[in-house]
């Protein structure tokens, strides 16, 4: 089932999808980042349980405990979760598609305060309480 595309990368980047496109892009970046993080984290923890991989495992996990990394991964996880909930609700109740623009506004109104508070807590902890 080969699908041929007629749009090149540069043309695709110029596409002005605005709000919905932004959530689509962030959902993909966030999802891929979480897959990468969780996979490496499971492997690193598995390694550090065995004598042959303790150093590598602890090194990788120490990156994840850094507060700068937490700022990034919490953005990915929280945005992916809230945007995913919007997608689930709109997909399982198709009548609500009529209000998809409003749904994206609600999504940002939910996301920004939660992420803002988390950002404050993480940075305060990172700079030494």
């Amino acid at each position, binding site marked *: *089932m*080969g*699908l*041929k*595309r007629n749009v090149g990368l540069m043309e695709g980047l110029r596409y002005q999808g605005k709000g919905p496109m932004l959530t689509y892009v962030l959902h*993909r970046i966030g*999802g*891929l980042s*979480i*897959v990468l993080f*969780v*996979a490496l984290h*499971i*492997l690193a*923890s*598995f390694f550090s*349980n065995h004598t042959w991989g303790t150093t590598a495992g602890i090194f990788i996990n120490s990156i994840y405990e850094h507060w700068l990394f*937490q700022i990034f991964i*919490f953005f990915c*996880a929280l945005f992916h*979760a809230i945007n*995913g*909930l919007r*997608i*689930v609700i709109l*997909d*399982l109740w198709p009548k609500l598609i009529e209000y998809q623009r409003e749904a994206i506004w609600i999504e940002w109104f939910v996301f920004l305060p939660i992420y803002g508070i*988390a950002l404050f*807590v*993480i940075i305060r*902890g990172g700079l030494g309480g």
Partner: protein
Amino acid sequence: MMKTKPRTAPQRGFHFDYLMWLFTRLSALAMYLIVIIGIIAALLMSARQNMTVADLMRWAFMPNPNHVANTNIPDLEVWKGIFWNVMAFLMLFFAGSHGLHGLLNVLEDYISRTWVRNLLRALVFLIWLLLTAAGISLIVTS
């Protein structure tokens, strides 16, 4: 003028891609449920006095006793046991399947050759198997 090949209509009813589409949505709801259960249970198990928000989130995303080992929780006994092992396994299963199927979805958006797609499907399935095995061993030994 270019001639376009007639396209075959997608198969109707239940088939693998539709089931995975549905699974992606339902597993998202299941993960929400597991996280909410984890947060409520942690608060009942004295998380408010003994843990930071970051520790609470770490526990909520994966209820493993190692995630609360560095907190001020005096007794880890209630944070272990078969119930939390089952919850951790469910989280591992839903998150792993949801995430790796999502990875495959993204990859297939940029790859059109059939044999490369089949190769990637096999590869992602293999990664899923290995990660699930490593995760189960971590849950069992912690």
